[in-house]
């Protein structure tokens, strides 16, 4: 295992310290328990947005703390959800009296730890609502699974709900906009290589030289199926095919198309993926009116990508376009 780290146990603390040092006008960092918070938190009368989860997915979530997006992010150990303590502390730190929304990716660990934190916050008189993101169509959502995972679509939920909170929507309204995004966003990913968690030192799985994993999660969990390497266009056909099977879109529908890198994928490859995805949507008459291409929700150094489609409408488009100023997403200011 070759990594630019000092020790596996200090990865998250040092990275968070570096993040704070690099973005002093934007965030401050609390240590013990660890969370990243907007420099101007709490904002009186504004709904606070808190998200978090295991580390190793950067820029998610710390990179999205700032004006028009998250108020705080709670990084757990690498690929392990944070415990309730820092989530509670972050919730208190951003509460400006208008309540706090937890944006939680649908993993048992995240759900349970955020749930516990929400109960504790409630006991301290802070109103908390939770929205669980589950955009990954690779997993069958049924009684027989823990349900779909939350993956790259989380960024879109955080941006749009963040814009709603920033303009002054109340907790109920912000939560319902977040829920609306969750209902209209779908993702599916592919991995070409595994990743290695620092404290384990072992690759998360093994793939043969010519094998890829379709429907990969963001923790190096195995995906839907393992197949021989195919040309990029054929892979994109599979990913987008699964999305459109699940969320049929009609000609004239407007969408945001996101191509997300898993961390170790060169940007040229992401744009090759984007090209084909846009082509497929165009063939169906579906309009791509907004786009996002880059590394947003990663799995350390994994090579691979995911495709996300968000079914837009006027409201979502307006909130997407609203100004945002975070380390990883910025426009309008």
């Amino acid at each position, binding site marked *: 295992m070759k990594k630019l780290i000092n020790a596996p146990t200090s990865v998250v603390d040092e990275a968070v310290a570096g993040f704070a040092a690099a973005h002093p006008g934007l965030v401050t960092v609390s240590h013990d328990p660890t969370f990243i918070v907007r420099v101007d938190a709490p904002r009186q009368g504004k709904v606070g947005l808190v998200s978090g989860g*295991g580390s190793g997915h950067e820029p998610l979530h710390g990179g999205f703390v700032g004006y028009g997006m998250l108020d705080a992010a709670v990084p757990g*150990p690498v690929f392990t959800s944070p415990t309730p303590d820092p989530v509670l502390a972050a919730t208190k730190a951003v509460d400006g009296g208008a309540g706090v929304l937890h944006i939680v990716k649908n993993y048992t660990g995240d759900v349970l*730890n955020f749930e516990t934190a929400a109960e504790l916050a409630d006991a301290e008189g802070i109103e908390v609502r939770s929205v669980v993101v589950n955009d990954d169509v690779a997993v069958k959502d049924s009684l027989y699974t*823990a349900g779909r995972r939350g993956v790259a679509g989380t960024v879109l939920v955080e941006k749009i709900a963040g814009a709603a909170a920033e303009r002054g929507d109340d907790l109920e309204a912000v939560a319902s906009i977040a829920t609306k995004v969750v209902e209209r966003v779908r993702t599916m990913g592919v991995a070409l290589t595994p990743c290695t968690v620092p*404290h384990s030192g072992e690759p998360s799985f093994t793939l043969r030289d010519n094998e890829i994993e379709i429907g990969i999660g963001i923790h190096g969990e195995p995906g839907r199926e393992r197949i021989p390497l195919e040309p990029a266009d054929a892979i994109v056909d599979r990913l987008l095919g699964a999305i459109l099977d699940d969320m049929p879109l009609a000609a004239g529908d407007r969408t945001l198309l996101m191509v997300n890198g898993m961390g170790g994928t060169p940007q040229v490859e992401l744009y090759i993926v984007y090209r084909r995805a846009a082509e497929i949507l165009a063939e169906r008459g579906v309009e791509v009116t907004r786009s996002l291409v880059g590394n947003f929700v990663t799995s350390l150094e994994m090579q691979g990508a995911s495709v996300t489609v968000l079914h837009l409408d006027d409201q979502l488009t307006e909130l997407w376009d609203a100004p945002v100023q975070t380390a990883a997403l910025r426009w309008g200011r």
Partner: protein
Amino acid sequence: MALDTAWATSWVTASAAVVAENRARLSSLDRDIGDGDHGENLDRGFSAVVAKLDGLADTATPADVLKLAATTLISTVGGASGPLLGTAYLRAGGAVAGQGTLDGAAIVAMLTAARDGIVHRGKAEPGDKTMIDAWTPAVDAAAQALADGAGETAILVAAADAAAVGAVATEPLVARKGRASYLGERAIGHRDPGAESSSLILRAAAVAAGG
């Protein structure tokens, strides 16, 4: 012999030791059908519990030890197993609150409460390929041993034996909860890491009782 606070603290200490010893193996089981951190998570948590034992008052009851373990695990383990095991210890402590020593009935009540806490939080049923598949047979075996007139140590041994069988029995199952559920049929043939760690922890309870 009824079990006292010394038993409770050695249960926790022995759990920490066996988790540390099996850290790599538990993470490796988790790598097969999850995300490979289970051993790491529990090791971090139980080490933290052990570090806090010194702070217990001399007058501490077994329930105090269990509650200390509960809050510490909740605030240090993270992942799915942290809130689940934390709730288990919390409920276990609640079931024996105020008792200086635990007799067979108390032990069965404690184990039952622990299992019920996990089910309450995680909504898993037997056969879902989770830690419940270690806990439920353990609770049943303990209750049976109590009914058969066994002493405290024998009850814990029966529970640990059943948990071990239960953990192995997760191997042919398809998972319906936790990360392994994403795998569908591909989880078949792999032992559930949480069931395995729960089996180790229940064995530690018996060993701490001299079993």
